[in-house]
């Protein structure tokens, strides 16, 4: 260990603000990218389900008319 206590670890020899800010922003940016990737997939699935339901409704209406 390069640090003697938790306190010293958080303080980073006086550079705590800079070190943790840099790591925090990096983590947040990557988190956004990961969530965005999963979100795109969920969106595709939702669109697909909607499209299917629309087709089913159309088919039913056609049956009712005829």
């Amino acid at each position, binding site marked *: 260990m390069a640090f003697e206590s938790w306190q010293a670890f958080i303080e980073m*020899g006086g550079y705590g603000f800079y070190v943790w800010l840099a790591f925090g922003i990096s983590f947040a940016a990557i988190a956004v990218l990961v969530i965005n990737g999963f979100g*795109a997939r969920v969106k595709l699935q939702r669109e697909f389900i909607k499209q299917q339901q629309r087709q089913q409704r159309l088919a039913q209406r056609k049956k009712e008319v005829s």
Partner: protein
Amino acid sequence: MWRWLHPYAKPETVYHLLGRWLPWVAGTATLMLAAGMVWGLAFAPADYQQGDSYRIIFVHVPTAMLSMSLYVGLALSALIGRVWQLKMADWALSAIAPVGLTFTFISLVTGAIWGKPMWGTWWEWDARLTSQLILLFLYIGVLALYHAFSDNRSGAKAAGILAMVGVINIPIIRYSVEWWNTLHQGSTLTVFERPPMANSMLVPLLVSILGFSLLAASLIFQRMRNEILRQELRRPWVKQELAELATQQPAMKEQS
């Protein structure tokens, strides 16, 4: 001779192949990154000149390196897309660009945060910093062009040409610290000589670089799979795939 490669040109095959690799690559990336970050933050010794502020290196250098190599990958897929008219190369372009953009952003921001205590300024219009900022704009441009056309092929074409022209910026970034007098320090890692860094710092840095590379790979796999589904939405195999996923998540069905 290249016959065995042909099945891999099928989007369906690539989709499933990436799906099989994704959990392993992402898992290894998470482990490597956790190890590299903990090692770099808590166990590597402080620098004799920069104290503990140098620990930013464990995100700054891997993301900066990858921002450049990802751009080369982007330009190569653009080239393949243009020369051999391979659709999937164009899709790879759109999968790589957001990852490269994020890594470029991280390298710029962590660099600025590191610069404040060490150089006394967040930003300086010096060669290394400015050329890296141009890289950010190139990524934004490629992404914007790719999505700017309703016809996907025109978008891919325009984005690909910008990507290929932009490659000129990569050697400029790489050698900017040698060609010009800059505030930025020289390269941390050198390929042909032993890097001028103690092993106690070098090894966690290499672990972080490996971790970030695997992270980039898994993010690209994820985005490539999404893009394949999006482009092939009308194909029966995609419909089947999405229908299966929908039955696995009944809660989502009720929502919509």
